[in-house]
């Protein structure tokens, strides 16, 4: 099984093009959503309607500090060495999450399916 170098280059180039296309699609698809969910260790801690936020405030999660602003949410600080979650910047819609792997914290924005039911008694 001998592969020509040109074939290899072609395969990887195609892969690169497809991935870039997918990335662009994800970034700019602008999946609608205005409800931020903050998870820690897989458990939902907070659900915040970002469209209703008027004043910026921070949430202290121990290892991470979350900044909630009108229409967007970001990681303000983290005690991990790489601070990738902080560098991810602010998110405004559901295209991609903010993830802090070392502290197992995850922030996603979802479309709060406006259910007519406010609560269930039972």
């Amino acid at each position: 099984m001998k592969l020509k170098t040109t074939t290899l280059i072609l395969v990887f180039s195609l892969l690169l093009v497809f991935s870039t296309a997918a990335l662009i699609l994800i970034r700019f698809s602008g999946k609608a959503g205005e409800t931020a969910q903050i998870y820690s260790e897989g458990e939902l801690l907070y659900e915040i309607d970002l469209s209703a936020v008027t004043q910026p405030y921070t949430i202290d999660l121990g290892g991470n500090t979350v900044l909630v602003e009108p229409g967007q949410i970001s990681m303000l600080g983290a005690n991990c060495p790489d601070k990738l979650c902080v560098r991810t910047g602010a998110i405004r819609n559901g295209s991609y999450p903010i993830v802090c792997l070392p502290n197992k914290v995850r922030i996603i924005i979802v479309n709060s399916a406006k259910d007519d039911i406010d609560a269930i008694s039972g």
Partner: protein
Amino acid sequence: MPGRGIRKLTAMSILSAAALILFVVESQIPPVVALPGIKLGLANIVTLIAVYYLGRKEAGAVLLVRVLLGGIFTGQALALLYSATGAVLCWAAMSLLSVFVPVIQMWAVSIVGAIVHNLGQLTAAMLVMRTASVLWYAPALMIAAILSGAFTGIAAQFTFKALSRNIREK
């Protein structure tokens, strides 16, 4: 002239040290792209050279030393888990390919290794975080793997050539 065993052991030690230095140095450089798991993977240069120069098993040993000591030096227990998952998969893929891919196409082996490495990390992250939402990172990780894999692969190829020439001259 020392025996083959000692030569091999010396080479493995030097490569382990080189891998560790690259790993630690890279961990001190702030990441270029703000996404978890995306980095150049300089230490992979050493793994690739070891696979071709020493053999699969020896490369595995070098890798093991680097992952464990690297984890201790940089002091990130959870990062160690991700990095070990990726590194082992990467080594397995590169070892497999090294059987029938010539030195001149080492860069391709490196890219495949990097892709497998990143997908492995993604799977580990998915299991640890108990969510599929990290899958959104897959395209970004793919691009990163191809670019960084090509870079480290070419670097490994040049180093390997220099190394072989050096040995022939002695």
